[in-house]
């Protein structure tokens, strides 16, 4: 054991002097900075900002002018024609209509004026004002008409209209977010959205409004929530008969629904706020893992072969240590490089996410025993860094094996890089052509992405980005992936030990 530690220390002494370590660390920082800048750009489209109040005011001013003059025109027309014309004449009826319309629109503008903050946050949900304004227009039109100009039909309709308006009027005039949502939900029910899914969405929206969540956040979250509920409902009713749903997919969706609910109620302070942060981090890490992958292939692929070509391996062979100890020390040194680089990756990506993109890592939500639980963001970050480096670990062993088996550094590194970065995309392409081929399942590549089994990002984690593409290649279960990766790794380890300990030098 003492000899093994001594050998390991020697390996680390040699490794620290290799420029490739520092070059790759610099590349990592540069790459992470560059991608963070790109993500920051993308994020500008992602964040739902309230409309600036000036723009709201300008809109009000412009519309007010239009409707004010429309009202004045209508009043002038009525004054001119009302005394002599037949109340039923089309000219007069049109003037009453314009009068009612103008009054209603001005009423709407008054409302917007006194609820500017809420209005600026509502986005397209503002459409709820349209039917209400139309009802108000009908009311103003009817009330302006002298009794003689009112038809029996209109009078009957007015009493219905009056009760409809009175259903909303108090809430509308008060105009809190909860009131507006009530009106909105009511109108949506009237328009036919009276199913179970909608009721769930309405309930969540109201609950969020009650706990003080801003309108834009409510609408941003509820859109995803509705989508998840609809997909789940589609699955329950059998959905598309050509689609086969895996039990795991159903579970994933159920969990997603739970997470939306949790975000809406449990994390009311920041229900969607920075949720895309973890997705950005995931993107950063996958690029960073690429750099780490190159580094470990270079390190592991040269550890034995470079010593053989330079002749320095003689010092090792002349040392009183068995060869398996030499292999173990070298392999441990490679693992150490990967471990350190993974930690550096975690640090660099977390920092660039925070400093450049502007988000801290968010708590990761997961479902355990039917309850949503939170994992601190930094743990999620660290775990993601490790999970994204599983491919690097695999190719570390592969390059090391080639190097131990007697290939030159160039060959060991070249073949490993070629397979990692060349054959892998090729296999994914093949999968598109031959999705049914059984042998595809036994290629190692698609098993590297254990993250989507262990720490998947749900749609509620993506802000408004929508879904992330699942990994290419045939679908696999976590246990199959793990067993297969461990088996392949063991084979490579045995090959590396066996060939180096038995090789004549």
């Amino acid at each position: 054991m003492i000899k093994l530690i001594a050998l390991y220390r020697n390996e680390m002494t040699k490794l620290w002097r290799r420029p490739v370590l520092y070059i790759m660390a610099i590349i990592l920082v540069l790459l992470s900075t560059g991608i963070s800048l790109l993500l920051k750009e993308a994020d500008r489209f992602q964040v739902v900002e309230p409309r600036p109040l000036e723009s709201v005011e300008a809109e009000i001013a412009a519309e007010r002018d239009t409707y004010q003059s429309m009202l004045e025109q209508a009043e002038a027309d009525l004054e001119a024609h009302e005394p002599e014309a037949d109340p039923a004449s089309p000219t007069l009826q049109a003037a009453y209509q314009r009068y009612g319309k103008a009054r209603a629109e001005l009423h709407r503008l008054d409302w917007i004026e006194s609820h500017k903050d809420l209005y600026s946050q509502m986005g397209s949900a503002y459409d709820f004002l349209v039917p209400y304004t139309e009802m108000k227009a009908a009311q103003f039109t009817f009330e302006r008409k002298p009794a003689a100009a009112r038809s029996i039909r209109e009078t009957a309709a007015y009493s219905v209209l009056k009760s409809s308006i009175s259903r909303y009027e108090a809430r509308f005039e008060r105009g809190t977010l909860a009131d507006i949502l009530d009106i909105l939900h009511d109108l949506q029910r009237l328009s036919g959205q009276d199913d179970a899914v909608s009721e769930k969405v309405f309930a969540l929206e109201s609950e969020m409004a009650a706990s003080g969540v801003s309108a834009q956040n409510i609408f941003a979250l509820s859109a995803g929530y509705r989508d998840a509920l609809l997909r789940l409902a589609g699955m329950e009713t059998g959905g598309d008969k050509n689609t086969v749903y895996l039990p795991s997919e159903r579970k994933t969706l159920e969990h997603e629904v739970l997470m939306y609910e949790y975000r809406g109620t449990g994390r009311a302070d920041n229900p969607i706020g920075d949720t895309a942060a973890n997705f950005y981090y995931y993107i950063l890490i996958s690029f960073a893992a690429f750099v780490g992958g190159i580094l470990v292939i270079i390190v592991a692929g040269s550890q034995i072969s470079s010593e053989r070509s330079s002749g320095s391996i003689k010092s090792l062979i002349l040392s009183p240590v068995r060869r398996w100890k030499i292999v173990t020390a070298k392999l441990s040194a490679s693992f150490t490089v990967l471990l350190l680089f993974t930690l550096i990756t975690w640090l660099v990506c977390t920092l660039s996410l925070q400093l450049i993109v502007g988000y801290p890592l968010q708590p990761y939500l997961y479902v355990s025993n039917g309850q949503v639980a939170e994992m601190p963001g930094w743990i999620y970050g660290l775990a993601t860094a490790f999970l994204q480096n599983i491919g690097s670990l695999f190719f570390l062993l592969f390059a090391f094996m080639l190097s131990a088996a007697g290939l030159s550094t160039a060959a060991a590194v070249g073949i490993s890089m070629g397979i990692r970065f060349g054959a892998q995309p090729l296999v994914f392409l093949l999968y598109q052509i031959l999705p049914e081929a059984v042998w595809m399942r036994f290629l190692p590549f698609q098993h590297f992405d254990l993250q989507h089994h262990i720490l998947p990002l749900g749609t509620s984690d993506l802000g408004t980005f929508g879904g992330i593409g699942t990994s290419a290649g045939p679908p696999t279960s976590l246990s199959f992936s793990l067993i297969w990766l461990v088996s392949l790794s063991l084979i490579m380890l045995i090959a590396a030990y066996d060939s180096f300990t038995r090789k004549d030098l």
Partner: protein
Amino acid sequence: METVLKLENVSKSFGHRLVVDQVDLIVKQGEILGFLGPNGAGKTTTIKIATGFLALDEGDVWICGHHLVREYETAMHHVGGIVENPEMYKDLTGRMNLRMYARVQGGVPPGRIDEVLRLVGLEKRADEKVKRYSLGMKQRISLAQALLHRPKLLILDEPTNGLDPAGIRELRDILKMLAHHEGIGIMVSSHQLAEMQLMCDRAAIISAGRILGEFSIDELANGAAGQHHMRYQIEPDDRASARLLLREDGFEFSEADGLFDVAVPAEARDSLLKKLVLADIRICSMTTRQTSLEQAFLEITGGGSSID
């Protein structure tokens, strides 16, 4: 004296080619064994077997009584060596190289590194990177490394390569000191035959994978079978009687222009001279023809290949 290296019936082939064929070899404490043989005779292969680079097909190697395969680490702890060219970690300093080697050897006292650096005369350049060293300096730092853990057996493959004459002399003095004062057993292969003659106590000769024999340096210098080669110049009138006398006494000789070259067993040298004088044969001159190691070597290996 303790045997520090013992090869017993060692064979090794590469594919179908038998490179080392049933080699037996012994190095004793305090002696320097020269290991000679022509190109491709199996010298380096034998050395690599004794230092763990190559697995042997047959036979056993013992180092200080420890079996090289069964007690690898204990056995190798007693070995210091330079195999083929001296190679070190070029990006590290000489001292760093030694420090790393000491770490793996274990039990090397802190002052020992300076001690071996002084011994090989590298104390002033020890903190330079090895890639700046000349071949001679690399040879020295390798020797320092080989000696670091006070091995009982030193195996050196062509250690004089790249050394200037002063360096060679210095190395010779160091090795002699190590063998004769510190009692280290040393096995040296070299193509510098003159060097070997000055350095070694004993030589083993290998050819085509087989050990042809082991000889003391004196034996080699004086002829393979312990024969002295005498050259007598005889007066023309006495040549016939000289011929007669030599034939009668059964000496092997050749004659050209009155120069008689006679192979005389060491113990018969004086008596032959006496006989010649008593027979009134007039001798103009008499020389002992010194046999060089190279001649001896060629005689033993059949002269077919040149030594290298």
